[in-house]
């Protein structure tokens, strides 16, 4: 898939590295050159310095041919604007915006812009860990641990509520 990620913070850069590793054609855009330092060593995708909510920048990086568009900057508003441009102006089929304010996330999801709020995801996951509700966190935790292992190359022990299931 051709993937465009706006925002090379920890989340954007990590995802860019993973998808690129898996063979996707990844372009990542950020307004600050220093942000690209978050990308894993040996990142095979393309980096582009610019504002990912700017029409000219988006055309420049080939948004017309993009399959997936992810708005993952630290600004909820910038993500919402970029995602709406991608969907409504350039007609990208698969668009996701990271929106940390759960209320804004909900409103825009209703309006047809898929959003996810790190705030609620973490809250749900933490609660599941505390209450040892494997059915909630199991898959997510397994994937998370696997990804961390991949990123660090280290073996992390799984928490008991993941291994002692069923």
């Amino acid at each position: 898939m051709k993937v465009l990620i706006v925002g090379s913070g920890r989340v954007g850069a990590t995802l860019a590295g993973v998808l690129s590793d898996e063979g996707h054609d990844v372009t990542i855009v950020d307004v600050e050159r220093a942000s690209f330092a978050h990308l894993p060593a040996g990142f095979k995708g393309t980096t582009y310095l610019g504002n990912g909510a700017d029409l000219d920048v988006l055309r420049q990086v080939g948004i017309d041919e993009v399959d997936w568009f992810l708005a993952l900057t630290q600004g909820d508003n910038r993500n919402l604007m970029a995602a709406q441009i991608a969907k409504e102006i350039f007609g990208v089929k698969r668009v996701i915006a990271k929106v940390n304010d759960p209320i804004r996330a909900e409103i825009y999801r209703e309006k047809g812009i898929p959003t996810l709020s790190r705030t609620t995801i973490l809250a749900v996951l933490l609660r599941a860990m505390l209450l040892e509700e494997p059915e909630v966190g199991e898959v997510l935790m397994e994937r998370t641990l696997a990804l961390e292992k991949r990123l660090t190359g280290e073996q992390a022990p799984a928490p008991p509520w993941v291994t002692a299931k069923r």
Partner: protein
Amino acid sequence: MYVVVAGGGEVGFHLAKALIEAGHEVMVIESDRRRSQWIEERLGSVVLNAPADEGRYQLEAGCQRADAVLAVTGEDAKNLVICQLARYNCGPLGRVIARVNDPKNEIVFKTLGIQETVSSTRVLMNVIEQELPTGGFLPLMPLTGSHLELIEAEIAAGSPASGKAVRALKLPDGALIGGIVRGGKIVPGVGEAVLETGDRVIVFSPTAVEADVRKALFG
């Protein structure tokens, strides 16, 4: 009128001040506490110290009874979201107007449902273009709620329209000469009025046929 001003920067502050002086009721929403105090010291209790891009504070500011919500922060993405949330949260309120810093975002905002935008860059460009001797063809402003615009055109010496009656011009369908500014006075743009060099013609025109209006006046 009751106006909610989202963002208490330079633009927001002076806008609120001018509105209050004109007798309107104003609430400024500003997230920075010190800036909020600074404004209150000058304008009185007209500031809500809160982020304007969160719906509950728009409601707290009384946006439901507002005649207008103006998003005037220095950040286009923020202004877009403020306007979209106001439309969503505040019911069928009056006007929602966004300040647009990058002029090419005007079309982005319109596509995303925010029809009324003001670009300071474009306003300044228009002022400068008005001062320029050449060209003489100036789209002044779009007319709210329509696909119409207001155009000002100066009839230069040698223009094919000079010496012609209004009715003899090949104006496109839907375009209308509203008036002719001549020697500081308005001459009605009726069919028999004859255009003279130096006249400034005010045209109402569908935006789509702007180029045809230009052709009719300048050849």
